[in-house]
């Protein structure tokens, strides 16, 4: 009789998940699943709340990316109340959200993903972690901790809370940016940009070149991609733009966020709480079949890097050109998510500098006049883990009547299941498996940074 390997908890990821690998009598993989184990029901318990309060409730969906929930929620409430934020309010929201991306990339690459590459995928679990990295490379690790803290505190000092923010508000922002703080942020961001460029170099030499064979094989699947691009020129964007849905062959359609229901659907399987978004507009249904997937696209770093026509900042564009000449467009190898993540790190630093240098950034007109009312608003931003959609309808009192959320991570639940199955089937043969092999299966999940 076959057996089930129950890899739980999936570790060094942000949420609660389990991988179950079903082996047949011969010890080969019959099937493999990655299931999300938690359900909290945010869509329902924000009903009845005054809409202006919701951006400071839904940030608790994710403690790693609370800024993105905060900004997309605010954009949705702007829509409900039919208000356009002041130009400075709008830019301050983007500034803080882009800054939050900086820390997230550093966190994921060094704290969560790096142990697999620095210590090796087969290292014992007791050392294959950030503490092991600190012991193996103390100077680098101390620098990493410093840099992440620098980025995090830059947000914390100005906006009061880096985790579970409150400073973006319907109509704009709660306070203007004083010139002295702008100066301090410029200096810190320059330091972070230098560190980002160092990180990309470090990773190219010590990870991507060294693990090229693994990158070419582990968890590799072929899918479409979803991201956000500039409305005018198709450049990479993470705070505002149009949505771009690309097919596996590289052809794409662009659409406005308000119309997302025409393009995206959510499929439900009985074995995991996470809903699985898919490309409804492709009219081919939903299937996770490895040979012939249907409706499956991916989101998050690799997707954004694939769908954009170019990066809107110079050093990130240089990195993108090098990436595309090596891996093409769209690049499909799952471990390239890590590479794409570091290109985004460069962009986030450069974009922060751009925003800080925008002439109106210290203007004191930060919040537009707002009246609660009935309406509907769809707010979309790019969270680290993918396109984040908040869609609210309010009643005449400006309280939430209905809400629909598609959260970044969920776009990749289907693809992660495919990558897990691909990796498990390729690595486990004739009943032979060990903790190193099973960790490689987890690496196929970790690349997506769920």
């Amino acid at each position, binding site marked *: 009789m076959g057996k089930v390997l129950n890899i739980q908890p999936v570790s060094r990821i942000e949420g*609660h998940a389990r991988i179950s690998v079903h082996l047949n009598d011969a010890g080969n993989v019959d099937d493999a699943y990655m299931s999300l*184990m938690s359900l909290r029901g945010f869509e329902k318990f924000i009903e009845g709340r005054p809409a202006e309060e919701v951006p400071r409730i839904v940030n608790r969906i994710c403690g790693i990316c609370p800024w993105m929930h905060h900004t997309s929620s605010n954009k949705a409430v702007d829509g409900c109340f039919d208000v356009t934020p002041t130009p400075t309010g709008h830019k301050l929201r983007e500034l803080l959200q882009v800054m939050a991306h900086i820390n997230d990339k550093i966190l994921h690459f060094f704290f969560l993903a790096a142990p697999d590459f620095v210590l090796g995928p087969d290292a014992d679990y*007791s050392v294959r972690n950030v503490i092991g990295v600190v012991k193996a490379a103390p100077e680098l690790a101390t620098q990493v901790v410093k840099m992440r803290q620098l980025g995090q505190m830059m947000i914390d000092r100005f906006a009061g809370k880096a*985790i*579970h923010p409150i400073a973006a508000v319907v109509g704009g922002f*709660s306070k203007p940016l004083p010139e002295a703080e702008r100066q301090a942020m410029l200096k810190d961001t320059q330091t972070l940009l230098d560190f980002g460029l160092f990180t990309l170099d470090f990773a190219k030499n010590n990870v991507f070149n060294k693990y090229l064979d693994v990158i070419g094989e582990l968890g590799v699947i072929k899918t479409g991609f979803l991201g956000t691009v500039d409305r005018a020129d198709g450049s990479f964007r993470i705070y505002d733009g149009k949505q771009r849905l690309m097919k596996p062959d590289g052809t794409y359609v662009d659409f406005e966020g308000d119309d997302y229901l025409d393009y995206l659907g959510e499929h*439900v399987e009985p074995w995991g709480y996470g809903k699985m*978004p898919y490309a409804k507009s492709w009219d081919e249904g939903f299937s996770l079949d490895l040979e012939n997937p249907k409706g499956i696209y991916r989101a998050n770093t690799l997707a954004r890097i694939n769908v954009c026509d170019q990066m809107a900042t110079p050093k990130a564009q240089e990195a993108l050109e090098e990436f595309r000449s090596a891996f093409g467009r769209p690049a499909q190898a799952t471990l390239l998510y890590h590479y794409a993540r570091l290109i985004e790190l460069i962009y986030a630093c450069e974009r922060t500098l751009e925003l800080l240098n925008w002439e109106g950034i210290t203007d004191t007109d930060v919040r537009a006049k707002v009246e609660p009312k009935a309406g509907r608003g769809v707010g979309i931003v790019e969270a680290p883990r993918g396109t984040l959609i908040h869609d609210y309808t309010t009643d005449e009192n400006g309280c939430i009547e209905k809400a629909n959320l598609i959260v970044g991570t969920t776009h990749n639940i289907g693809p992660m299941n495919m990558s897990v199955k691909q990796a498990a089937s390729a690595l486990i043969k004739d009943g032979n498996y060990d903790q190193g092999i*099973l960790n490689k299966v987890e690496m196929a999940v970790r690349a997506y940074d769920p």
Partner: protein
Amino acid sequence: MGVKTALEWLSSCSGCEIAILNIGEALVPILTEHLDIVHAPVIMDHKYFGQCGDEGEHLQIPEAVVGIVTGGVSNEEHIEVLEEMRKKCQVLIALGSCATQGGIPALMNGQDSEASFDAVYQTPSTDPGATRPDQGVPELLDRTYALDEKVKIDLQLPGCPPNPAHIAEVIISLLENRDPVLPTKSVCDSCPTRREGKGEVSKVKRYIENAEFDPDKPVSDMRCLLEQGFMCMGPVTAAGCAKYGAPSCIEARVPCRGCFGSVRPKGNQMLDMMNALASNGIDFTTVVDRRSIQRFSGAHGNLRPKKSAVKEEV
């Protein structure tokens, strides 16, 4: 070798774990010298059922001196993990407001959770006919519980997120075998804003306009937000969020929403807030959605589904 420590997260968002990281450089010696982490899903790969997932039916966590648990309890797996942590750890710490009083996910306690969880799978983007997953996923409990409703907790450290300085203080006090020094007062007691006494305010304003303040002047120059007519929950909320002098939300010039929970142990922030408003001559019926005053402390029976016959809610 450091003190054996295990970390777990239940119905949570990982914000508490990021707060631990925000201890900053001081965290490096804590992690590498003072503590010996034996289990922590967020950063290390220890597994419940053996490293190959083929050992036993009951989940296993190694023995530890200190256990830190974040998140509330909302499904069967959370209970199993929490009981295992209690069994294996000598000192069990509830970290963050979800663990200490339910936190935001316990807002679900204020409604019919069965119907609501079903409705999550009936949104306009979800395929028609979909139903709530029920195969191999942990069954949901009737409501979200704080940890101390299920097991004995030795130390409670609230906050959404908790203050990194206080997390470090708790860890260091344990290493030094002394009681931690933590704030005991209210957010108001730790707030530097200017108070001029009861004013002409009789109604509570929604937070749809910014507070009045001079951005070039420090927080201590701004008038108290309650006196400006906003519902600021400072009077009824435990202090602890201040990192740069003023409470965190006040630093952002935004009113407090009570994320550290009640000042008094087992206190009720909603009743306390109603009293605070009334004693200042403010009509508390002008608060839209009074139940959300309990948004961080819905466990311990503080939030219950509305009875449909009662129509007191505005």
